[in-house]
């Protein structure tokens, strides 16, 4: 392409890039070149591109201001058109590794980034001060809903969401270590070095792809070795240490209780576009439990707040230095530096040495330090002390800086104005320690006047801070502090680090103290003449906004943050927050410590949703519990129902059958021949011990002392509030042993409930509980021909209803398998529940199906089971109950012992509301129009009630409703106020289409006398 950019701003040599290889990438459609080792930001700057994005509110042109995670402005969309499923919104150019074919776009600028129509909003900026939205657009709801809010929403957001599912894989790891070092700069490397080879397990995590931190962007020597080489040597030494795990490209983003830290490793994003190499996750989330933590997270340089301080080409001094040294990029040729501290002078000196013209160093202090200003002057650079930059010129790139004299009143005098041309304006407001993780850990901060920064104070976890994040900004101090912290952490974690080295020889110019300047204050009448003094460059918060918020009574630091949206951007205010606090303190006339900081909330930098999910995606989102017979159900074409985590066959449609037809067929089979149900999912609890009967007496509402061995009883259990919790049958296996069944969904909850009472309330009861849910597979056969089928399966054993009493169980050999057979019935039919060892469940099912040939044996699912039981008026816990029904409400007063002095929940029955006679009772409900099957959940009202005004009084609701082939009618179970006294009454089911009449009746609708359960109705 002819409009190719050619890395004009790349220096001919130097930098930590691989010049042997070129990387082609595209930015807003234009092809450019870079090298391996580049970030998107460094490559753009190498190609002279400063304008990268537009701000959120006013669509102001925004460039690259920093070189790392703190950059507020350079947001792009990665891979929008080439790889729609892998496009990533809101990517920070400074942290985007350059890869072949990378495509990056600016989103939200129309028609183009250069000529963005949205910039017209800049004209309205004078109106759109703090709290703009709250003060207008409240008059007309219609206008708000149809005009204002849609406009606001349309303008929102930076990037676009992919429109396809993410094909990539994400991994998790859990690790434990003795020492975790966060940050691979000089302090972190020194710390890890001190801890290495001590036998302690050490993890060093660094968000950058390269270890070295600030050493990569400065000219420094440590012990006579270049800083970059020193870092490389350290890395090599650590790599060779057996117990050290180096994690580059890994951001520790959360610090939780008990030294639990979470980190995101970017595994493949830097390898190229497209799918990750086979088997490799795109990202890996590390869960780290560390005995000790050393935080060596560095510091962020602060920008300065003055008029139009946001133009592309305005850059943090240290960032420019980093672009120069690490990437051999000269981000500008005509340079002005505006600083409040000595340290930044070095950037000007380095750029000068690299060939840039430094027009001036503008220092707000009257008395800077000695060494660096002298060096600057010696290099022929004009040093202006007591001056500030008050405003800038330029549109899409800075073209000049307006220098003003600071008066005795601290205000910049406009008459001393001097405009310096520049294409790079460096700014430095001092350093802010990166205290995010420390603060997340619960540590308290203190404001240090000397450093003009918040630094760690009291910590509450097993951690140490080292280096710049601790307010130690000089390299020798960083190294010494890091080494000491690493050694101390090792020792406290129980290993011997040996004597740590604490003295390092470093060549670093001395730097004098900073004098903070939170904003450039123009002379009073000129307050608004010099453009917008931005504080949060992403959200377009200005110093004016902050001061206005204070004037309006927002005095808490959190209020100002929220009212002005400072620090709410994707950078979470890394460069903005401290300046905002300084400006607020000034406006309030209070010292900074009284203002305090806002909370540093996790994550430190944004974390991919899918990385949080890890492998728990798709079918692994939650375990699907399968019975021993599952594959048979699949082969039979079953549709499945999720019951808790279980997959249960819902119905077994034959080809061409609707669900209704399939269920009707299954129901008929069970009522007329024999149906087969996989009942393995019911919870089963083995209860042993001499006090087992007493225990059952206490947890069930009915009496258990007299249940004989071999017999089975139905029981209901309540919670202490008297409401039904679960039901099921319990069989007496021998003198001191019972087998309890629970509902499928409640199995774990019931076992927990029982264990809790045993261990915490009644430890004197000699009772042992073991879950045997998966010890047994259960096949239930029901229907008039169940007896015949049972006879075929258990030949030579008389299991006929005559010989085998209802509600009893016995051991038997069924299809050659050792089984326990229970004669219980949830269908009203003659029914056997055959239990065999789980691993033989499949064999039993096969045998039942084979033996049933000719008997009309038909598998049925949960839907048919529900119809069959509902015809008999049997409840399902969780369907007829919702935690607000007592057994009495359900018409089960027969199961509530009057004799037992106590059981769980008994006392609650006599509370005034619980004892009311007009509570909702379980009843049957028959539609006047027999074809009608009411939707479950329908509400029941008095006839005609829905014609009245709302709210319409409701009598109750339909809990279950089905088509009954046996009744040849739709029918329902319902909970109706005072329902047991209203059998025969006609009420209305209030459907959206209108009322439908129905008659309240006994919930038992079929075979009230119970003949069928002994097989007599065939």
């Amino acid at each position: 392409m002819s409009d190719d950019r050619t890395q004009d701003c790349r220096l001919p040599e130097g930098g930590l890039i691989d010049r042997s290889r070129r990387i082609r990438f595209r930015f807003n459609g234009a092809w450019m070149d870079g090298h391996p080792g580049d970030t998107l930001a460094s490559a753009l700057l190498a190609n002279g591109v400063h304008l990268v994005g537009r701000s959120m509110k006013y669509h102001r042109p925004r460039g690259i201001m920093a070189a790392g995670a703190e950059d507020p402005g350079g947001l792009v969309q990665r891979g929008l058109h080439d790889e729609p499923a892998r496009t990533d919104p809101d990517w920070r150019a400074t942290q985007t590794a350059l890869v072949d074919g990378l495509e990056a776009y600016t989103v939200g600028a129309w028609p183009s980034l250069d000529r963005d129509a949205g910039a017209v909003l800049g004209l309205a900026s004078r109106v759109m001060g703090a709290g703009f939205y709250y003060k207008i657009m409240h008059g007309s709801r219609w206008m708000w809903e149809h005009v204002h809010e849609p406009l606001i929403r349309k303008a929102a957001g930076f990037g676009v969401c992919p429109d396809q599912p993410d094909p990539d894989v994400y991994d998790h790891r859990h690790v434990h270590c003795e020492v975790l070092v966060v940050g691979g700069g000089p302090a972190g490397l020194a710390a890890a070095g001190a801890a290495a080879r001590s036998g302690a397990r050490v993890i060093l995590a660094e968000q950058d792809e390269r270890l070295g931190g600030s050493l990569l962007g400065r000219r420094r020597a440590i012990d006579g070795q270049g800083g970059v080489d020193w870092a490389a040597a350290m890395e090599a030494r650590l790599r060779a240490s057996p117990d050290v795990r180096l994690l580059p490209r890994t951001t520790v983003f959360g610090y939780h209780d008990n030294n639990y830290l979470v980190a995101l490793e970017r595994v493949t994003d830097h390898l190229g576009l497209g799918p990750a190499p086979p088997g490799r996750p795109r990202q890996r989330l590390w869960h780290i439990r560390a005995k000790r933590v050393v935080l060596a997270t560095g510091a962020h340089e602060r920008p300065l707040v003055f008029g139009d301080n946001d133009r592309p080409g305005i850059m943090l001094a240290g960032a420019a230095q980093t672009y120069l040294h690490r990437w051999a990029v000269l981000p500008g040729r005509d340079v002005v530096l505006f600083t409040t501290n000595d340290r930044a002078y070095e950037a000007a000196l380095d750029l000068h040495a690299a060939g840039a013209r430094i027009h001036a160093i503008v220092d707000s202090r009257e008395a800077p330090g000695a060494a660096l200003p002298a060096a600057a002057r010696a290099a022929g650079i004009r040093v202006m002390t007591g001056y500030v930059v008050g405003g800038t010129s330029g549109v899409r790139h800075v073209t000049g800086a307006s220098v003003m004299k600071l008066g005795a009143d601290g205000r910049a005098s406009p008459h001393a104005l001097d405009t310096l041309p520049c294409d790079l304006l460096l700014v430095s407001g001092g350093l802010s320690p990166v205290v995010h993780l420390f603060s997340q850990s619960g540590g308290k901060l203190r404001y240090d006047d000397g450093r003009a920064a918040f630094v760690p104070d009291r910590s509450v976890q097993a951690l140490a801070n080292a280096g710049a994040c601790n307010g130690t900004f000089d390299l020798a101090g960083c190294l010494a502090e890091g080494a000491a912290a690493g050694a101390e952490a090792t020792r406290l974690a129980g290993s011997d680090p040996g004597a740590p080295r604490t003295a390092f020889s470093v060549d670093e110019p001395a730097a004098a103290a900073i004098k903070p300047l939170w904003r450039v204050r123009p002379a009073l009448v000129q307050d608004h003449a010099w453009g917008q003094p931005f504080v949060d460059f992403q959200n377009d918060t200005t110093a004016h906004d902050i001061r206005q918020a204070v004037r309006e009574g927002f005095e808490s630091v959190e209020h100002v943050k929220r009212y002005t949206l400072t620090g709410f951007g994707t950078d979470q205010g890394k460069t903005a927050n401290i300046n905002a606090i300084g400006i607020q303190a000034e406006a309030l006339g209070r010292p900074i410590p009284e203002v305090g900081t806002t909370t540093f909330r996790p994550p430190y930098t944004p974390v991919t949703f899918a990385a949080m999910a890890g492998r728990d995606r798709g079918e692994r989102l939650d375990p699907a519990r399968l019975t021993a017979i599952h594959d048979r159900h699949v082969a039979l074409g079953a549709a499945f129902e999720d019951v808790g985590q279980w997959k249960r066959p819902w119905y077994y449609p034959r080809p061409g059958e609707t669900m209704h037809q399939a269920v009707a067929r299954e129901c008929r089979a069970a009522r007329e021949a024999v149906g087969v149900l996989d009942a393995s999912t019911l919870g089963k609890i083995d209860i042993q011990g001499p006090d087992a009967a007493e225990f059952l007496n206490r947890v069930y509402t009915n009496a258990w002392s007299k249940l004989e061995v071999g017999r089975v009883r139905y029981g209901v259990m309540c919670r202490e509030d008297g409401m039904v919790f679960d039901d099921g049958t319990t069989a007496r296996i021998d003198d001191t042993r019972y087998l309890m069944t629970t509902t499928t969904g409640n199995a774990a909850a019931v076992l927990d409930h029982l264990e809790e009472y045993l261990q915490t309330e009644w430890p004197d009861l000699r009772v042992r509980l073991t879950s045997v849910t998966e010890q047994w597979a259960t096949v239930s056969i029901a229907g008039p021909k169940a007896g015949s089928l049972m006879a075929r399966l258990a030949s030579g054993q008389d299991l006929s209803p005559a010989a085998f009493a209802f509600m009893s169980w016995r051991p038997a050999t069924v299809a050659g398998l050792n089984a326990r057979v229970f004669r219980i019935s949830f269908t009203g039919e003659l029914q056997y529940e055959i239990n065999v060892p789980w691993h033989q469940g499949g064999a039993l099912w096969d045998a039942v199906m084979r033996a049933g040939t000719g008997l009309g044996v038909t598998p049925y699912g949960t839907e048919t089971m529900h119809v069959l039981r509902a015809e008999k008026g049997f409840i399902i816990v969780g369907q007829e109950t919702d935690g607000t029904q007592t057994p009495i409400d359900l018409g089960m007063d027969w199961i509530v012992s009057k004799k037992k002095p106590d059981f769980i929940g008994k006392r609650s029955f006599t509370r005034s509301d619980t004892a009311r006679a007009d509570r909702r009772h379980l009843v049957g409900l028959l539609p006047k129009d027999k074809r009608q099957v009411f939707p479950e959940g329908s509400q029941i009202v008095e006839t005609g009630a829905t014609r009245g005004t709302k709210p319409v009084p409701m009598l109750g609701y339909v809990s279950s409703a089905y088509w009954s082939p046996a009744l040849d009618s739709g029918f329902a179970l319902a909970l109706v106020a005072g329902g047991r006294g209203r059998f025969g009454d006609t009420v209305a089911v209030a459907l959206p289409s209108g009322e439908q009449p129905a008659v309240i009746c006994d919930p038992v609708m079929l075979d009230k006398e119970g003949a069928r359960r002994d097989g007599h109705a065939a």
Partner: protein
Amino acid sequence: MARYSVWSLARNALSYHRDWPRQWRSPELGSAYDVVIVGGGGHGLATAYYLAKEHGVTNVAVLEKGWLGGGNTGRNTTIVRSNYLWDESAAIYELALKLWEGLSRDLNYNVMLSQRGVLNLAHSLGDVRAGRRRAEANRLNGVDSEWLDTAGVARVCPILNTSTSLRYPVMGSTWQPRGGTARHDAVAWGYARAADARGVDIIQNCEVTGIRRDSGGAVAGVETTRGLIGTKKVALAAAGHTSVLAAMADVRLPIQSHPLQALVSEPIKPVLDQVVMSGAIHVYVSQSDKGELVIGAGIDSYNSYAQRGSFHVLEHQMASIVELFPIFARLRMMRTWAGIVDTCPDASPIVSKTPVPGLYINGGWGTGGFKSTPGSGVVFAHTIAKDAPHPINAPFSLDRFTTGALIDEHGAAAVAH
């Protein structure tokens, strides 16, 4: 109160916004008030506003131990809806929703109510039954609510994964078109400004340390970090700390405080136009006017006053989000936080008199606090002014735990928020 309007905005823009009046005063703490409200969040400020507006009670102090709206008001996921199951709940939340609909105008403060509609998804046959039951009850209670089948859900929210490949497929949903979101901070500020204008003293950085009672046991005053205040009526509206405050008057409550976490994504262009909630797989998500996806997590299991929860809760949350919205997988979580929620055994609030004369409690809202704010304020103000509950909050008494007349909204609140 200087009214906000396009004209006031234009006028102030001319003077570079230098002349905006304070939104509320910073008054000296008085020595006695007719009513002292503890808690300067949405509920406390709304109560003060309605005490002044509806009952003419203006000698009122609202005490806030930190900054206004700094508790759960500023920490929730801003969902507003009224589709609760039981008549009692529907009544109080629907009262609130009706007030929400006129709130910006009433307060002369744009609370940015955004009625984008709320889906409560069903993922099992049990969910379907419960959802239908709720939608039908809502309809008869005059709450706009309907039942959608899976195809209907897909029409309303096409980016939702409604395929059967989902581990727990979407089997339908309730749909309340009038539900939506509001700007949480603006609610606190709007009420504060309006209450202040009616004479209410709003005192920040003032923590209550004790409740004084007279020889008869009735409330006589409150002790604070800024001195003693005489009052015969103390109203607690300090979600999270209700138990701690009530204990100062020897009142024991059936309330437990738990962390509740939430998070936002980086801002993206509009992609989700509804509030989507799923109790079964613990998801609730909406997209804010700034473009962030606002996502709520499940309640942490343990008691806590720490305003932080456990990380694995968020991991589960994101796993569910990514399944329900597969296109969100590559989006990034930008900020997380937690509040402290008061939870009651029946997942319904307590808005009630107490055994201590002059002590009133508004708490236990669990995840329902924000959406109820205006309605809660109206009925609590009534309860305080008349020393008797409003018919709408009468069922939410402390007595119900003795009589058994619980209002069990677990079904509705399991769909947290």
